[in-house]
């Protein structure tokens, strides 16, 4: 009789561990997939920027300070890896990119250029996708980290090998740059 009770308790604990484990695995996978989406969009931005810089340089006939800044920021961002390093580098690149888009806005001959227009839209959508992918990544990480630290999962999470995941932070300073009106 008491053997069955002990066995029942063991089975219950086992089932509970399985559900905690599956929940945490699901959360971690969502976060990892979300990070790879950010990565895709960041690479896309790294590829797009030299094109736009080239087209702007050709159209203007000379290399402006904004352009060298963008390229420098871009190269720094390419070199960075992982959420902690990439955050500040990508934030700087976002700021530099806005400068570049602002430059395009202020030159009518650039705005009229079809090549520039197309690249401008591509860069805009990539900027948005980075922001949205980051938003989704941070949401999933928050959900995962909260689940990890909630009772009673917190009792088992660490021993099952589920550590906390870093948020992808871009420093707040970028938001103070006036928004470029794109239409």
């Amino acid at each position, binding site marked *: 009789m008491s053997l069955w009770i002990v066995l029942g308790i063991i089975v219950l604990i086992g089932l509970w561990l399985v559900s905690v484990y599956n929940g945490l695995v699901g959360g971690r996978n969502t976060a990892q997939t979300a990070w790879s989406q950010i990565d895709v969009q960041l690479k896309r931005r790294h590829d797009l920027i030299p094109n736009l810089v080239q087209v702007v340089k050709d159209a203007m006939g000379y290399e402006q300070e904004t352009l060298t800044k963008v390229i420098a920021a871009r190269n720094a961002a390419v070199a960075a890896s992982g959420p902690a390093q990439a955050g500040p580098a990508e934030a700087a690149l976002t700021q530099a990119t806005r400068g570049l888009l602002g430059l395009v806005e202020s030159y009518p001959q650039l705005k009229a250029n079809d090549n520039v227009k197309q690249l401008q839209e591509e860069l805009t959508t990539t900027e948005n996708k980075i922001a949205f992918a980051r938003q989704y990544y941070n949401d999933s990480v*928050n959900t995962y980290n909260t689940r990890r630290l909630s009772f009673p999962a917190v009792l088992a999470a660490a021993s099952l090998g589920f550590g906390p995941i870093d948020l992808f932070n871009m420093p707040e300073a970028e938001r103070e740059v006036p928004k470029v009106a*794109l239409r």
Partner: protein
Amino acid sequence: MSGTTDFAAAQRVNRRNTFVLLLALTLIAALVGYLIGWALEGTVTDVVPAWSAAGLVAAALMAAASLCWSAVSLAFGDRMVLTMSGARQIEKTDAPVLYNVVDEMSVAAGQPMPRVMVLDTDLLNAFATGNTARSGTIVVTRGLIEKLSRDELQGVVAHEMAHLANLDTRYMTVVGVTVGLIALVADMILRTLNWGGSVNARSSSGKKDSSGGAAVLLIIVLIVVAIFAPLAAKAVQMAVSRQREYLADATSVQFTRNPNGLISALQKLDQNAAPFPGVSHATQHLFIVNPVQHFTADTPALLATHPDIADRIARLRNMGG
């Protein structure tokens, strides 16, 4: 805007609701099938059977019919709607901004990118169809692409992506089938009673009917149920539809973090909403703004597919717009 991935919870609730509805739908159909078979056997043999074989056969037939109807609606409903609307699929080069905005919203929702289609009309409207984001389609009118700013377009597309991410389209398909089946079955009950009643009248004229009073009462109850059940079911369907609109507006803001885009888009859509070819009462509930009827705070709300736009905008403003 409490939890950050609220739409995952909305998906879970919708999945469960879809399942419960399907089950209830099948049970109702089976029960009504049994009742009809039972009544038929009773009137033909002139003996009220305690256990009806014909009823069991009819119940099985009705259950099978309801499952088939649901399965067919889920599998082909979106294609039928798309064909009826006359929308055409586009590639990125046809409308790069629209295509990019849909792509952005699928990133924000963490979902695969749905197909993008355009309806060739100057009017402003949009809808989504399909069971999931992967197999789904977002349809917008040409007028919407031309007259809305990027932010406004983003708000509208986010609303449609929210319907897909929340699995609303699937849920509403099953709700629609339930309501249709209840209407059909109520109609069948009324017809059966009509027929059965005349048979009873003929047979009871020669015999003594001891249970006459109870039978009349039962028939009156059945008639009342058959008349009011479809109306009540329709009211429930519309209430669910309005709730899903509010939820999609909220999820849209969760995706874009910019209520102003959707607010000003809704204002423009409200001024320009009008019926156009390919839209009927069968598809009106799909659109972001009802293209057939115009709802204001004064319209009786019980049978409205969409909430009042002013109310939707007020709720969006509360989110910090």
